[in-house]
């Protein structure tokens, strides 16, 4: 039983829909700007932020279950995705899934004043949104570092394929906060300029915020071109909690398992490509081990930064949009490739027929995930 991408929405610095994001990215526009906000960092740093005025304007008149930035992103993204969907969110055959790394962490205060704050609990955020839509099933929350979004989609696909549900409303969101910025700064992993995935001069990642929602369904959407989430897998490096594996072990296993039984080469690869020196090298090793080094690969981080728990969903939906339009986006920010193993990383958009693509993600804790998407016309 195939599982389809039934409806979707994304909210990033580049726009409030998949179409708006695709258009900007297609024109080579990046949403990364230098930010000089002491509430986020003492020094100016490049970052991809959602337009908060536009977010508020889009939500005026609603009584929100949670009025934090995180709550707003989740609410608007789900609402927009459901607008274009034939799935009934209150149907007992529908399940809500939330993916996030830090949820409402910007509401955290000093020691002792957090224990009673239910908004800090990720399951509580998920429960709020499914209750708002009158859904009778307990919401599922996946919080597995930077693979959360892709893993949430894989989990949703599995639950539908297994017959537990017919539809899943999967939303991923993360907000750029001082908590996250200072942490990556302490890791010396933030780039000084907009990040440059796969480039020889890459010096770190650029953070981004946003939300993505996808409605997965076993019902084939009523339109000419549809995208199927064919398969997915996750795996662990079993090597180090923060350092990428030097052998690409976990990503290689995830790719191998996700593509098991698939004979044709994928059309393109939407890689993780954070632009830290070690991550991108790790990916080049894993893709080479998986026999995929020749497949065109891109990272979307140069357009919208690393959106953490939302990244897997946002980037999968951009990939699906590209598949529909028979195009592949360039690697924004890449000038001169510099990787342990050479990859095929286009620096111009490709216009050609594509039937499938692979999305990958890797994160702290040594986790990795990969999923295959296929177009049906």
């Amino acid at each position, binding site marked *: 039983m195939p599982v389809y991408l039934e409806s979707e929405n994304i909210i990033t610095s580049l726009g409030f829909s998949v179409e708006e994001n695709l258009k900007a990215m297609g024109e080579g526009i990046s949403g990364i700007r230098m930010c000089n906000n002491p509430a986020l960092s003492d020094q100016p740093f490049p970052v991809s932020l959602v337009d908060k005025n536009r977010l508020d304007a889009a939500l005026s008149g609603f009584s929100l279950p949670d009025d934090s930035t995180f709550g707003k992103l989740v609410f608007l993204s789900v609402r927009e995705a459901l607008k274009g969907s034939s799935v009934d969110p209150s149907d007992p055959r529908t399940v809500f899934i939330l993916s996030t790394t830090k949820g409402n962490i910007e509401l955290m205060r000093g*020691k002792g004043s957090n224990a009673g704050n239910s908004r800090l609990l990720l399951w509580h955020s998920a429960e709020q949104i499914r209750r708002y839509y009158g859904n009778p099933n307990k919401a599922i929350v996946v919080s*597995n570092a930077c693979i959360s979004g892709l893993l949430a989609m894989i989990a949703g696909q599995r639950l539908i394929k297994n017959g537990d549900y017919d539809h899943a409303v999967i939303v991923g969101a993360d907000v750029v906060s001082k908590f996250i910025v200072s942490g990556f700064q*302490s890791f010396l992993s933030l780039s000084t300029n907009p990040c440059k995935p796969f480039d020889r001069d890459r010096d770190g990642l650029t953070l981004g915020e946003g939300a993505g929602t996808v409605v997965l369904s076993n019902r084939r959407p009523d339109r000419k071109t549809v995208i199927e989430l064919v398969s997915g897998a996750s*795996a662990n490096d079993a090597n180090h909690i923060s350092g990428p594996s030097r052998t690409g072990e976990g990503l290689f296993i995830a790719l191998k398992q996700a593509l098991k039984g698939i004979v044709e080469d994928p059309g393109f690869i939407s890689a993780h490509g954070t632009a830290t020196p070690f991550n991108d090298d790790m990916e080049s090793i894993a893709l080479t081990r998986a026999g995929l080094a020749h497949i065109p690969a891109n990272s979307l981080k140069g357009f919208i930064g690393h959106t953490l728990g939302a990244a897997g969903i946002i980037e999968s939906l951009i990939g699906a949009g590209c598949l529909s339009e028979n195009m592949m986006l360039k690697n924004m920010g890449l000038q001169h490739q510099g990787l342990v193993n050479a990859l095929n990383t286009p620096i111009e958009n490709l216009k050609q027929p594509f039937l499938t693509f692979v999305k990958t993600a890797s994160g702290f*804790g040594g986790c990795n995930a990969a999923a295959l998407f296929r177009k049906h016309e």
Partner: protein
Amino acid sequence: MPPHYFASMNNPVIRKYVSVDKRSVKVNGTDLLLNEQGADFGEFMKQIYHACSISYLKFFKMDPQSKLGFVAAKILLQDDDRDRFEPEEKAIVLANSASSLNTDEKYFESINDIPSPAVFVYTLPNIVAGEICIHHNLKGENTFFIQEEFDIQFMVSYLNILFSTTNTRKAIAGWVEVDLDDNYRAFLMDVEKEGSSEIQGNFTVDFIHQIFKL
């Protein structure tokens, strides 16, 4: 002790289970170690570490949640034959309610001074899974779920999907949490797809409800 269960060879089974809370460490429902002096968390973890003759310097760098999951997994897998399955056939699926909030609060306190990278890295719930994977060479499926309380029905359902549709043949599954009030509980099961010579019971919702409460 749970009643004797007849375990089917065709359905997933629980080879062993371990529970750790502030009172005791239990293996298959039987006390292994009691916290008789009412030692605080750090002290109790150290006692378990020494009682189980663990020698792993990285243990002392872990945050409380990782320490808790690490000792529980260590006891769970101490007698397990590593080579029966390929690393990529061994999954880990964990859950808790408080994510990493206990360590998040500690990290938050450090931000206005000098943020600590060694604390920041633990501000994700799945790091404990990573620590367990590293020590026991588990390279299979990985997922951390956040739930109001341990959703046994869901855990059984999700693991059965892994067993039936992925390469997974063994899974470390359960609950690991240190919450904002410093309450803690670990409950880990070693679940195998095809049965094992040593079995505590079938991997069913009813059985897990019994042993989780013990």
